[in-house]
């Protein structure tokens, strides 16, 4: 789960990480009130989960509440790389002496937390990493021992943090690691972490991702979950806990397990078709999960045919077939549906379809043939 900047900053504050004081605003009026409450020059920041907000005009200075109102009016509703701005974060403007970069993340290869720090923060840290690797200090942490003061010191000296800011950055790193552990985050990224004119160290941005698997231990975080999409299918899938991503083709795809779904996308493409989505009904898909997944797929008008690719392991093909029938019964869809069932209870599943499915449901014996058939049917239907 990715958090918005304002959510991340509110959590940072709980962990004692300094952030500019600020308020959320969903309307120009609220933005004006926030600017009044905060006082002085404020920054009006679009809350979207995508990089390059600044360049896109989503971040503006406002010298007084009226300017804040005006900027908020401009930014709210703006489209930034496909994301509509529905919410703003109004915060006190910072007097920046220098911009640093700090992050705590999860190194999949090392299987350990990785803390990174650079004195060359700000816009393009990936370019820094590539062109000036020595300017980005990196340190893995033994998760059983934790982040020790000597780790922070090494990072600070090797990132070349300016002397007056060292103590503040040391503290910020320590608290960022505490937040990483405490929130069970997969990412805490602060870019920029600024050294202010009055020698404080403040997190000017906040990128926080939380491990979905751990949310049951953090009911307060679960409550932060907000739908970040305007897409109807994505929202439906999100609400129903189905792993779904929309793509721009017309062959709807569903499978059990991320691997077979990805592979299904690939074979549809190889067969000359365009997948409409990625949809993993889950490793242990039962009738209900299948029905839910189908509802999501069938609600998308641009889908012309469906490929359902199931290799039963823990999933039982007969249950999948039952779920399919239930959903069709309820939704009454007429578009062509190509089903391929293999593995656990595959024969029973195929029998159920043969006996009871409507005519628009066809069974194919292999993944390749199913993909071909679904592509052909989509083309016919267009």
């Amino acid at each position, binding site marked *: 789960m990715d958090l918005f900047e304002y959510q991340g900053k509110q959590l940072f504050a709980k962990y004692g990480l300094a952030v500019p004081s600020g308020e959320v605003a969903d309307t120009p009026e609220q933005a004006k009130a926030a600017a009044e409450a905060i006082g002085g020059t404020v920054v009006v920041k679009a809350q979207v989960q995508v990089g390059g907000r600044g360049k896109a005009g989503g971040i503006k200075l406002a010298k007084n509440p009226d300017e804040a109102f005006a900027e908020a009016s401009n930014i709210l509703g703006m489209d930034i790389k496909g994301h509509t701005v529905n919410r703003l974060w109004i915060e006190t403007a910072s007097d920046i002496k220098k911009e640093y970069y700090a992050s705590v993340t999860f190194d999949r290869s090392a299987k350990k937390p990785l803390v990174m720090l650079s004195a060359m923060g700000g816009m393009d840290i990936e370019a820094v990493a590539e062109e000036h690797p020595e300017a980005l200090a990196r340190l893995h942490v033994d998760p059983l021992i934790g982040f020790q003061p000597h780790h922070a010191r090494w990072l600070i000296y090797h990132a070349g943090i300016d002397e007056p800011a060292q103590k503040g950055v040391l503290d910020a790193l320590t608290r960022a690691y505490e937040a990483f552990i405490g929130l069970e985050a997969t990412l805490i990224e602060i870019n920029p972490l600024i050294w202010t004119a009055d020698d404080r160290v403040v997190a000017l941005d906040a990128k926080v991702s939380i491990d979905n698997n751990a949310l049951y231990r953090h009911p307060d975080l679960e409550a932060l979950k907000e739908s970040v999409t305007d897409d109807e299918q994505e929202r439906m899938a999100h609400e129903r806990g189905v792993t779904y991503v929309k793509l721009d083709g017309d062959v709807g795809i569903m499978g059990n397990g991320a691997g077979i779904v990805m592979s299904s996308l690939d074979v549809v493409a190889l067969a000359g078709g365009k997948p409409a989505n990625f949809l993993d009904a889950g490793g242990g898909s039962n009738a209900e999960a299948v029905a839910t997944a189908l509802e999501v797929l069938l609600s998308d008008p641009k889908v012309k045919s469906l490929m359902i690719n199931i290799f039963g392991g*823990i999933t039982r093909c007969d249950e999948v077939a039952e779920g399919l029938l239930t959903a069709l019964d309820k939704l009454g869809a007429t578009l062509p549906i190509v089903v391929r069932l293999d593995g656990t209870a595959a024969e029973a599943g195929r029998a159920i379809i043969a006996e009871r499915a409507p005519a628009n449901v066809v069974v194919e014996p292999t993944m390749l043939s199913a993909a071909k058939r679904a592509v052909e049917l989509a083309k016919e239907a267009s």
Partner: protein
Amino acid sequence: MSILVDQNTKLVVQGVTGREGQFHTLRNKAYGTNVVAGVTPGKAGQDVEGIPVFNTVRDAVEATGANTSMIFVPPRFATDAIYESLDAGIELTIAITEGIPAHDMMRVYTHLKRGDQRLLGPNCPGAISPGKATVGIMPTDVFTPGRVGIISRSGTLTYQISKEIGDLGIGQSTVVGIGGDPIVGSSFIDILQMFEADPETDLVVMVGEIGGDEEERAGEFIAANMKTPVVGYIAGFQAPPGKQMGHAGAIITGSSGTAQGKKDALEALGVRVGTNPTEVAEIVADTLK
């Protein structure tokens, strides 16, 4: 021979009395796996169709000499179950459970790698040595005894590829699902090493997918250390661009993590890579000729 599971496997199942635990335990047993015990706290003295149930793994090990454990408990109890298995001295722990928090696994992994026990998974389908033993949830009738080893991050793709290979009349020595989570107990390299040491495995199929850099690292290991030929498959050429873990994620991997990137890296290291499961099977047959 085969790796990980075989006639010497003495299996204890943690969560044996749960619905799925019981179902798959009995299927594993029916396949011929030597299932010696089950564990469900508070149910010691009961049995599951003749399989004795114990309160703790340590009790099960002391009473039956179990050397392998399969974990079927729900995610919020599974980390504890893994520690219990490790503490009881189990050589190979196979965690089927999906949904264990990553921070838990980070600690489990660090602890694990300081000893010489093995963990497969979590979020894995288990391992099968066709004709000998199966531990996990794989649909057994897809597999036939033979001399091709298979390693995969994805359960369903494993079945798919095994079936495609089987359809060409080629059987498997051992099929291993290492699990799809960001942190799993055994990597491609760990298992490749075991297959390389197995005289009865003539070829290994490595089934990867987008994300991380496990496949690239495995490719380097293969080029440097393996005589046994390896055929690759990568799923996800058409996958939506994965969510970046901020800039930090991109910086760490250094690689794109894309299917094409992985395929190119593997091929540059001399590993042939198929573009779909059927083609993978054809390359396997061709290589074995």
